[in-house]
């Protein structure tokens, strides 16, 4: 697997964003009122950029992602994809949207049907997408992106693969739809450090080679630091800080960002004061 060093980010682009959320709010009804999970969030995703959303559990990161994926209706606000309002599209339009905006979720152990081989799952995914292309060639190409070989991966059942392999298969499955945007919701949290970097490098390569736009949701600032061009920090449904990765991580302005950074366990530090 090859991977180049980070390119310095070319500053704010003036081109139209691929995907944007405008004033998106989500309220859940709870006993005795409403709970606002995502509060008036406006965010733009630019072509070929990796945007990381960081924040602790319950900060609304995943709710935002699920709304962008149109898996959860918004309470108010708009989702704009390639200049079109997709907040309320349905039917074939929505299916087309789901082809363009794909997702990889946190748990690589829960996103598989245990009774299907990888090959079977891929064929089913393609049938749902209704594509008439050369499926074998497409599958081989997408598995190649994530460093897997078709003849090794396709006959395997989920239990025959490691966590990292499963997550890479999930990335390959998402890529088969030829998406413009990939949402990775804590996609690497359950992997151990070595596999984690290999999945992050895959995302890095795809961004560079295919111009894929990536929304990377994580609570791990170290991963955001490695991968992202831009970082958004969320707290209690609000965006409290946003900007280029270097700015947000090395010169944090908001108290919450500073606290998140100070909570990151440090390999060279220790909380133990005893000898």
């Amino acid at each position: 697997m090859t991977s180049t060093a980070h390119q310095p980010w070319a500053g704010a682009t003036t081109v139209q964003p691929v995907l944007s959320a405008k004033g998106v709010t989500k309220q859940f009804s709870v006993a005795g009122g409403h709970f606002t999970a995502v509060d008036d969030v406006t965010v733009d995703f630019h072509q070929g950029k990796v945007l990381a959303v960081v924040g602790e559990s319950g900060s609304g990161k995943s709710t935002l992602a699920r709304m962008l994926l149109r898996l959860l209706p918004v309470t108010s606000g708009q989702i704009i994809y390639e200049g079109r309002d997709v907040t309320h599209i349905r039917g074939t339009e929505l299916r087309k949207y789901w082809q363009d905006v794909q997702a990889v979720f946190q748990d690589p152990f829960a996103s598989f049907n245990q009774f299907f081989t990888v090959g079977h799952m891929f064929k089913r995914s393609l049938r749902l997408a209704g594509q008439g292309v050369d499926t074998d060639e497409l599958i081989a190409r997408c598995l190649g992106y994530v460093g897997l070989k078709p003849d090794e991966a396709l006959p395997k059942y989920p239990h025959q693969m490691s966590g990292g392999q499963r997550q890479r298969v999930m990335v390959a499955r998402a890529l088969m739809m030829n998406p413009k945007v990939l949402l990775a919701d804590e996609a690497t949290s359950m992997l151990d450090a070595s596999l984690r970097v290999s999945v992050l490098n895959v995302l890095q390569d795809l961004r560079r080679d295919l111009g894929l736009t990536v929304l990377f949701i994580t609570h791990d600032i170290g991963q955001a630091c490695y991968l992202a061009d831009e970082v958004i920090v969320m707290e209690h449904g609000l965006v409290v800080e946003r900007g280029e990765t270097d700015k947000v991580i090395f010169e944090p302005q908001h108290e919450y960002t500073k606290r998140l950074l100070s909570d990151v366990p440090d390999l060279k530090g220790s909380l133990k004061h005893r000898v």
Partner: protein
Amino acid sequence: MTALTAAPPELLMRATNLNAAYSADGTRDVPAVDAVSLEVPRGQILGLAGESGCGKSTLGNTLAMIANPPLYVLSGTLEIAGLTIDLSTLDKGADARHRPHRGQIVSMLPQGAMNSISPTLRIRDLVCDVVRAHDRSKSRSDALDLARDRLTMLGMPVRVLDQYAHQLSGGMRQRMVTVISTLLNPQLLIADEPTSALDVSSQKALIEMLIHMVDEKIMGGAIFITHDLPVLSMVTDQLAIMYAGRIVETGPTAELVHSARHPYTSALLAAVLDPTRETRTKTVEGIPGSPPNLANPPTGCRFHPRCPFAMEVCARQDPPLVGEGIHSASCWWAKDHPHETVPLQGVSL
């Protein structure tokens, strides 16, 4: 007091020659823990690190005396609290005798324990269950008093006892199951991936609580199992690095993190992503290849197919134990390069 510091710390637990295997289809054994010996000094936390599938959790289950089929303990003795327990006979009729030891001597906090709180019961019901399972003479109010005192001591809100699991955050749930699993003041707590599902702030709260618990002598010591090296370096006194069922390197945490003697340790350290300027510009490669199939492990050193320093001898012979004092590694490279640290760049080609 000062005169005592030179004496070696009193040993809390010693496990010798543990061998455990999964029975795959009745005839074939897959050894998951292979000739592992561990020691935990009193009042210390030992970290157990390694990739997924290296046998960390299996080792934890073996030590916690909760090995169930298809996992079989083939051999191994556990010396703790003046007892010598033959772990391989636990499942052969001696079970009832050792039941009180589970939870009281060795307490296990399994992976994902925070999701095991019944959604229909209050936290206080779980507290009563745990306490009364070990001591029928204790009443509900005794159990609750114990829990209240413990929560107050750790600076946690007592109202949690009257709440249901869904009313608590993930971090609070995890801290509660940790408190409940140590209510009986176990000698040893084995915590399996307690921080993996938590965000950084909850992680920090949990590890601070664990350190507090050891300092307050709520438990004699702990084994902390995770693949997250930064978390381990915050909380542990000593580290044991496991690869393919074997311990490849052990040592004091600070020393091991700064001067790894085994290439696998070094590779794990190289894959850590800190939020630093260096991380912004460097390219980290994972360890090439994948962990071996334990049903058919490589000969000699099990890491040799993935090791950038592999020599001809590595494939042929088991590596020797190299090292002085408590920092030791099983590696041919370390034998040829005494007192040298594995260069980090060498393993992240």
